[in-house]
């Protein structure tokens, strides 16, 4: 490949530095009325097949990322995070009591529930808004989703162990008071930011 001549280099640099697409006339004016057609054609050919293309859109020229590489401009990164204690409790309450309003969740948990806690469950796709309860204030009510069942390997909500089974498994035994106090602290609205992320990894 022969090195580009000065005009080609100048057109290349001009378009690279331009803040907006430029017409051939504008480029030409910028470069002291040089005839830039051949230079544009040469640049087009040069960038063919590279990661960047020189393209003409509505008579204006610009560099842009090659179409097949467009996915590089916007990437998604998945962070795997463990559900916080508070969110797990709320999820369990929704699963056992659905459909259930936020006020009801709080009454069952005995602590205030941060708004972010339900948002996390909605984002995870395990809880959905199931309408509104037809009582004064028409509170939003929540229920679990099919994704919830499949994630936890349940055929239906009836597969969740009943109260008697929980008692038999010792899961209803009173827990250490200090531990509970600690859990409550983490679960309340007072620390919405850390409440959700404290035990994420």
């Amino acid at each position, binding site marked *: 490949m022969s090195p580009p001549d000065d005009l080609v280099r100048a057109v290349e640099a001009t378009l690279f530095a331009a803040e907006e697409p430029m017409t051939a006339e504008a480029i030409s004016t910028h470069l002291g009325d040089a005839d830039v057609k051949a230079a544009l054609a040469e640049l087009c050919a040069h960038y063919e097949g590279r990661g960047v293309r020189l393209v003409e859109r509505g008579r204006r020229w610009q560099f842009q990322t090659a179409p097949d590489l467009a996915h590089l401009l916007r990437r998604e990164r*998945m962070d795997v995070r463990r559900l916080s204690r508070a969110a797990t409790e709320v999820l369990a309450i929704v699963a056992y009591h659905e459909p259930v309003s936020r006020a009801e969740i709080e009454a069952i948990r*005995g602590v205030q529930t941060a708004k972010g806690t339900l948002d996390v469950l909605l984002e995870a796709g395990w809880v959905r808004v199931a309408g509104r309860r037809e009582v004064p204030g028409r509170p939003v009510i929540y229920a679990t989703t099919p994704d919830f069942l499949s994630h936890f390997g349940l055929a239906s909500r009836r597969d969740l162990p009943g109260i008697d089974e929980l008692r038999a498994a010792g899961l209803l035994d009173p827990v250490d008071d200090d531990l509970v106090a600690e*859990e409550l602290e983490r679960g309340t609205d007072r620390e919405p930011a850390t409440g959700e992320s404290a035990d994420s990894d």
Partner: protein
Amino acid sequence: MSVDFAGSELSGAASAPDGSDDWSVAATAEERDDALYLELDGWEGPLDLLLDLARRQKVDLRGISILELVDQYLTYIERAEALRLELAADYLVMAAWLAYLKSALLLPKEEQEDPSPEELALRLQLRLQRLGAMREAAARLMARDRLGRDVFARGAPEGLRVDRRNRWQCDWYSLVQAYGQVKARTQPVVHLVRERAVMTLDSALSRVSAMLGVNLDWMELRDFLPPHAEPQLRRSALASSFVAALELARTGKAELAQDETFGPLRLKAVRA
């Protein structure tokens, strides 16, 4: 500013600058008319003025004549004063120092104190070299191909975006355990107060008055307590019996005596 430096005559070895000294050659030294020298705003302090004067000697900074420099500076200050120009204190302090230095340089060596005038001169010279070097470096830096002036970044970059998404994790056991803990936490709490062995005031009152009735002599309070009671009951009985004794004394049915503070408390029935 500090005045811990001064100069001395070091120019005896008028140095021939070699190639590596390019950077210290006074590229910005301008040929200026002497008259312009009285523009006081032109210098950023006395060191700046000294550097400019030094460069007028047109030798490498390492080869400047400090004596000549001192003379030029003093002349400058004198002319400024003659013209009644406002001089910053810095300039006058420097002038005083340079005058002192000049006299020290002209004195015979034996009478010199520490630090020697030669050392002071070297310090001044080094300071001028340092400042000159930085001034030169700044000029070279500013003359480089600068981004946004000589070279340009992409004018309209598409930008890279990374959208962070969370994938949440939780398992069946954690879920069920969490529910169990919610239930356990919110179960109605029943408070049980266990029965404790106590002697009520009433029973103490009847016990103490009954025992007083059959005794004529002084008795110690502790003799009224049930003999084989467990410690907890015994404490309760002591408290109740003490209050009972006070009550009996108040109603005139008993006499109380205590020989010394914290000594044994004794009781005797009052015979009507």
